[in-house]
């Protein structure tokens, strides 16, 4: 079935990003925007904008019925959910399936399969992909028995969680029962699913993920990996490809594992399989699969030359995979830094407001994905991502130097951002060597900020 008109059920930079590809493909776009985003860049660039509700996401971007009704009302052939919001909600995919609207993403059943972290673990094991030692627990006694075999420290995780949400770390087994009860009630409130499971806490690990594309009929290819180990409280800050300092053998094993896992699900569309890689032993464990386009997809586009959104649309339209694995060539290095409206000097508090002046960097090898411009008002209702600056060069040190220059060229006046902090990260000696683990950023922050929050409170 051909796709001539797409309803974009998202906002911000990803909405602009999707519109850009649609324009190149000659596909009409209708933006489903909240009242706060009616005058946004995406609203202006789309062929049409429909207002779906008040600013609060629960009243607009998270309303499945309204989104599908909007798609039917504007006669859109398909819905692109972007990332976040409804992108991994099986309910939207299912309602689309029932109403003859193409959902640009996996099937509802596949979203269910990877959204349930226990089920995803089981699928990974069945596909011969290693998982972190652990498992399901239904009672405190059962948990203690399992915890003794895993050993402390360990993590209590929410079955319905993901991306670091709904996790509790347990260092002593006597604290397990309390952590279990707390995690379970929090998970119930946050995800509507109180089930939790245990996993060994891997102290020193790298977050490396593999981008895959599947045709939904069992054929899957990968587009290389991304290293997203620079994280603050499980939020990625800097992403790069290829992952520095890993052996070709490990890289190949990661690719094979991601493809095997996705093949087992007959995965449809673009997805990402995340792994925790033990830096000492080169062992790796399946973390989760993200069944959507990801924020950091441009680094993969930079080294492959592939427009991932265009491939998502082609797969959704039934064209299948237009690329063979042998078509995928990974060239050079790409690094992305996220520009967030947050204040690093105030514990990264969000910093909404009016952008008075704005100048983005330009140059060969630099890409900026954004939805803001001078005069934009950053509403307080949504996440703080303002832009992504992506740098490509033949080698890592050139890509990093170019990205530092790009940050230096950027002029953003009116609100606090993390740009200065990003410049520090990208100039950090440990980061420059490469192959940092997920603990890197908190170590850097400890070095950088000898002031405690108590000092701040005292003024």
């Amino acid at each position, binding site marked *: 079935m051909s796709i001539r*008109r797409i309803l974009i059920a998202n906002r911000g930079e990803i909405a602009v990003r999707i519109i850009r590809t649609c324009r190149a493909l000659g596909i*009409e776009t*209708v933006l489903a925007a909240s*009242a706060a985003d*009616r005058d946004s860049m995406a609203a202006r660039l789309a*062929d*049409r*904008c*429909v*207002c*779906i*509700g*008040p600013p609060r996401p629960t009243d*607009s971007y998270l309303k499945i*019925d*309204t989104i*599908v*009704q*909007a798609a039917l*009302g*504007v006669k859109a052939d398909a819905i692109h959910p972007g990332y976040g919001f409804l992108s991994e909600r099986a309910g939207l995919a299912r*309602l689309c399936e029932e*109403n003859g609207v193409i959902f640009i993403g996996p099937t509802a059943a596949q979203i269910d399969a990877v959204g349930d972290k226990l089920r995803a673990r089981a699928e990974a094991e069945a596909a011969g992909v290693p998982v972190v030692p652990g498992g399901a627990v239904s009672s405190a006694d059962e948990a203690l028995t399992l915890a003794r075999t895993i050993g402390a420290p360990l993590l209590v995780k929410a079955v319905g969680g993901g991306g670091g949400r709904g996790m509790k770390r347990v260092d002593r087994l006597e604290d397990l029962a309390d952590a279990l009860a707390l995690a379970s009630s929090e998970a119930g409130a946050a995800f509507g699913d109180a089930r939790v499971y245990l996993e060994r806490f891997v102290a020193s690990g790298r977050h490396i993920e593999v981008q895959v594309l599947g045709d939904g009929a069992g054929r899957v290819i990968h587009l290389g990996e991304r290293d997203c180990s620079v994280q603050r409280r499980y939020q990625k800050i800097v992403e790069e490809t290829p992952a520095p300092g890993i052996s070709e053998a490990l890289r190949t094993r990661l690719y094979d594992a991601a493809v095997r896992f996705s093949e087992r699900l007959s995965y449809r569309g673009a997805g990402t399989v995340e792994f925790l890689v033990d830096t000492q032993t080169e062992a790796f464990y399946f973390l989760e699969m993200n069944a959507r386009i990801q924020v950091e997809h441009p680094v993969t586009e930079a080294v492959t030359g592939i427009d991932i959104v265009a491939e998502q649309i082609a797969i959704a339209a039934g064209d299948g995979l237009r690329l063979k694995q042998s078509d995928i060539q990974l060239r050079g290095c790409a690094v992305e830094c996220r520009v967030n409206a947050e204040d690093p000097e105030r514990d990264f508090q969000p910093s909404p407001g009016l952008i008075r002046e704005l100048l983005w960097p330009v140059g060969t090898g630099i890409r900026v994905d954004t939805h803001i411009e001078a005069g934009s008002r950053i509403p307080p209702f949504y996440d703080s991502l303002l832009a992504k600056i992506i740098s490509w060069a033949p080698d890592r040190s050139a890509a990093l130097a170019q990205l530092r220059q790009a940050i230096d060229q950027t002029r953003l006046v009116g609100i606090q951002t993390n740009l200065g902090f990003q410049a520090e990260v990208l100039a950090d000696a440990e980061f420059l060597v490469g192959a940092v683990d997920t603990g890197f950023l908190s170590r850097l922050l400890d070095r950088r900020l000898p002031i405690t929050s108590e000092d701040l409170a005292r003024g």
Partner: protein
Amino acid sequence: MTLTAKDVAEITRLLETSSFDELHLEFEGVKLSLRRGVSADGARVAAPLVSVNTPAASQAHQATDRVQPPLKQRAKPAEEGVKAIEAPLLGTFYRAPKPGAPPFVEIGAVVTADTVVGIIEVMKLMNAVRSGVSGTVVEILASDGALVEYGESLVLVSESK
């Protein structure tokens, strides 16, 4: 039957609230062609009594097949004491409880805050739209069966003092 100035005004208004760009009417020797467009002073341009060449139906079809411009620019009531009843949510607007039934309200109807003026369907779920103000209906902006956005003006009511 003759076409009065009031009739032309009424038809013009219908065109404005519809999703069509053009309207051609022909009966009893009278030809009326209306086209959407904004003149220098901001008023809608009506070009009556222009002969019709293309069948209206095919033009209408072409018009609906294109992506329509956003509805949000629709003028809010400037007149004093006139309040707009806005869509509380996005969906399909219906003026009557079921097809063929008389509309909830017509122009001239007296409404109170609780009066239902229409329904908005969201995935087969019917949501009553209540007036919210007391007064007299002076204009119905949203057409039956049309997609209305959140916050779109549906009905204008002249508030009673």
